[in-house]
C-alpha cells in the first residue's frame, strides 16, 4: 500500500486515525504497531517475516549490549555490536545484490536498527526493554517504506508515550496534503513529461537537457513529497520527525546541497560513519579518505550498479574540491551563480541516478553533447519545451521558495489582517480545494509509484 493510493487516503488513513484516536491510551501503541505490520505486509506478506526477524534480532542484541555494559565488559560489547551490525548489513547486501527481490523499505529500516545499536554503543540511548516500543520504532508505518531515517536517539522518548493532540492532527494532515499535492500535481506530471521526452530513440541536445531538468525536478517533488507525507502522518500520531528536505536547489555549494537534500541519510552517515572515522579533526590525507569512504557508501546504499557508485563519487568529488581547493574563493561570486552552478552539478549527477546502467548514463550524457546526431535544437525538442514550459516553470518556482513566498506574502499576511478566524477559514478552503485537485489527479492519472521505493 502506498500513500498516494485512493484506498490509503480515503479508507486506510481515516480508519487508522479513528481507531488510534478512540482506543484507550494504553492500547494506542499496540494498535499502531499492528496497523504498521498490516501496512507493511499489504501486497507481500513475506516481507513482514523479514521485518519481524530484524526487530527480534536487534531487540535482543540491544538487551545483550545493555547486560554487557552493566557488567563492564566493553570489549565483548564491541564484538557483539560488530557481529550484529555485520549481520544486518550482510542481510541487506544479500537482498540488494542477489535475485531474491528487495523487500520494500529494507534499506531504510536496516539503517534505523543500526542507528539503535550505534546509539547504545555511543551511550546516546539506553537499550529498549519494551519490545513493543522497539517494534514501533522500526516498523512505524509513516516512515518504514522510504524514511526519513529517524535516529533512535531522537525517537527514544517519543515511542515510550504516544501523545496525540488536535493541533498536531491538523498540522500533520496539512503537511500530508502538501506532500501529496507535490507528488500528484507535480512529480507525476514531470515524470510523464520525462518519459515522453526520453522515449525518443535519439535526442537532440535540447531534448537531452530538457529530460535531465524534468527528471531532476520530478525526483525532488517525488521524494520531498513523500517525506512531507511521512512527516505529516507521523505528526498525526504525535511523532515529531525532522524535515528531510530544505529547498536543496537553493544551495550555494554541493556540501550545502547535502545538508538540504535527503537530510536524514546525510545525518546518518555523518553521525555513524564520518564522525567515528575522526570527522574534521584529522589530518588532510585522512579527511580526504574519510570523505571518499562516506561518499562511496552513499552511492552503494542506493544500488549495486556502477552508475550509483559513480553518482556518489561525483558528489564526493565536489565536496572534496570545496573542502580542499575552492574553500572560500567563490564567496565573492554572486549568490545566483553559485546556486546555478550547484544545481548544474546536482542535475548532471541525476543522469547516473535515472540511467539503468553506467553505459546507459554515458550514452545519455553523450546525447547531451550532441552524440545523438539530432543537432543542438530540433523540432521535437522545441515541441516538448513549449508543451511542458508551464509545468517546468511552476516546478522550478516551487523548488526555489517562490510559491511559498507568494502564499505567505499574498495569502497569509492579507488573511492575518482580517483576523485569525478568517485565516483559519481561508486555510480550510485552500485545503479543500487542494484535496479536490489531488483526488481528480489520482482518478484521472495512472498510478505512479514513488521513485525511492526501489532503494
Amino acid at each position: 500500500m502506498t500513500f498516494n493510493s485512493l484506498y490509503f487516503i480515503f479508507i486506510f488513513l481515516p480508519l487508522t486515525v479513528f481507531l488510534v484516536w478512540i482506543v484507550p491510551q494504553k492500547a494506542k501503541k499496540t494498535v499502531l504497531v499492528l496497523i504498521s505490520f498490516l501496512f507493511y505486509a499489504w501486497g507481500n506478506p513475506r516481507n513482514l517475516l523479514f521485518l519481524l526477524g530484524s526487530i527480534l534480532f536487534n531487540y535482543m542484541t540491544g538487551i545483550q549490549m545493555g547486560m554487557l555494559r552493566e557488567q563492564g565488559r566493553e570489549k565483548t560489547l564491541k564484538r557483539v555490536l560488530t557481529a550484529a551490525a555485520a549481520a544486518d548489513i550482510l542481510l541487506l547486501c544479500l537482498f540488494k545484490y542477489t535475485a531474491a527481490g528487495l523487500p520494500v523499505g529494507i534499506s531504510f529500516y536496516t539503517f534505523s536498527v543500526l542507528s539503535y545499536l550505534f546509539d547504545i554503543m555511543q551511550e546516546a540511548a539506553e537499550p529498549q526493554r519494551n519490545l513493543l516500543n522497539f517494534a514501533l520504532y522500526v516498523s512505524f508505518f509513516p516512515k518504514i517504506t522510504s524514511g526519513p531515517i529517524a535516529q533512535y536517539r531522537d525517537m527514544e522518548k517519543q515511542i515510550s508515550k504516544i501523545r496525540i493532540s488536535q493541533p498536531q492532527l491538523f498540522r500533520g494532515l496539512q503537511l500530508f496534503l502538501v506532500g501529496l499535492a507535490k507528488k500528484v500535481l507535480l512529480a507525476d506530471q514531470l515524470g510523464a513529461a520525462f518519459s515522453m521526452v526520453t522515449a525518443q530513440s535519439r535526442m537532440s541536445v535540447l531534448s537531452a537537457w530538457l529530460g535531465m531538468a524534468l527528471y531532476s525536478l520530478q525526483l525532488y517533488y517525488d521524494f520531498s513529497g513523500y517525506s512531507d507525507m511521512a512527516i505529516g502522518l507521523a505528526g498525526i500520531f504525535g511523532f515529531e520527525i525532522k524535515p528531510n528536505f530544505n529547498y536543496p536547489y537553493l544551495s550555494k555549494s554541493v556540501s550545502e546541497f547535502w545538508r538540504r537534500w535527503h537530510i536524514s541519510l546525510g545525518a546518518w552517515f555523518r553521525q555513524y560513519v564520518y564522525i567515528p572515522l575522526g570527522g574534521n579533526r584529522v589530518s588532510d590525507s585522512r579527511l580526504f579518505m574519510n570523505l571518499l569512504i562516506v561518499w562511496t557508501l552513499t552511492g552503494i546504499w542506493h544500488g549495486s550498479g556502477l552508475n550509483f557508485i559513480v553518482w556518489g563519487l561525483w558528489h564526493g568529488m565536489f565536496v572534496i574540491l570545496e573542502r580542499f581547493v575552492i574553500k572560500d574563493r567563490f564567496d565573492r561570486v554572486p549568490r545566483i551563480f553559485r546556486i546555478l552552478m550547484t544545481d548544474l552539478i546536482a542535475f548532471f549527477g541525476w543522469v547516473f541516478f535515472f540511467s539503468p546502467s553506467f553505459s546507459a548514463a554515458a550514452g545519455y550524457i553523450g546525447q547531451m553533447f550532441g552524440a545523438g546526431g539530432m543537432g543542438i535544437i530540433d523540432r521535437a525538442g522545441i515541441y516538448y519545451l513549449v508543451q511542458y514550459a508551464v509545468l517546468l516553470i511552476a516546478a522550478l518556482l516551487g523548488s526555489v521558495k517562490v510559491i511559498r513566498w507568494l502564499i505567505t506574502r499574498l495569502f497569509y499576511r492579507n488573511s492575518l489582517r482580517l483576523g485569525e478566524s478568517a485565516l483559519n477559514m481561508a486555510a480550510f478552503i485552500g485545503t479543500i480545494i487542494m484535496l479536490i485537485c489531488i483526488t481528480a489527479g489520482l482518478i484521472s492519472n495512472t498510478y505512479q509509484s514513488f521513485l525511492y521505493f526501489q532503494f
Partner: protein
Amino acid sequence: MTRILEIKWICYGAMLALLFAAIVRVTPSKAPFDQVEAAVIASADMEKLTEGDSLMIRRLYGLDQSAYQGAALYYPASNMGAEELLLIQMKDSAQQKTIEEAIRSRIKTQKKNFDGYGIEQMGLLSNSLIEEKGNYILFAVAEDPAVIRDAFLEAL
C-alpha cells in the same frame, strides 16, 4: 545471556534460510529472450495483435524498453480489442515491482476504457494473468491465457 544469544542467532538463521529459499525460487532462466518470445507467440492468437515498439511500451506501460534484457509487447490491433501480451526479461529482480505496478496500472486503465459497454473485454481483462518466473515476467490477456502461460513456463 546464553539463551538470548541462541534465540537471536536462531532468528537470524531463519531469516537467512528464508532469503536463500527466495533466491533459489527466482534463479534466473538462461533461456534466450527470442526463444521464449517465439514460444509465447506460437501459443497465442496473433491475428488480434500488433507488435509494439519501445515508444508503445513507454506509452502503454510507462516502461523503458532499454532498461530490460528484453521486452516485447503485442497490443490490440483494433480499438475494440483487449487481447494483449507483454513479455519482459529483467536485468535484476529490483525491476520486478515496477513492472508489476505498470501491468496493474495498465489493467486498471483498460478496465476503465471498457467499463459499461465492453462486457467481453472486461471478462478478458478480469481473466488476465501475470506470471513471474526467475528473471521473466509475462502478462497475457487472451481467451485462454493458461495455454500461453504453459508455453511460457515450458520455454524457460
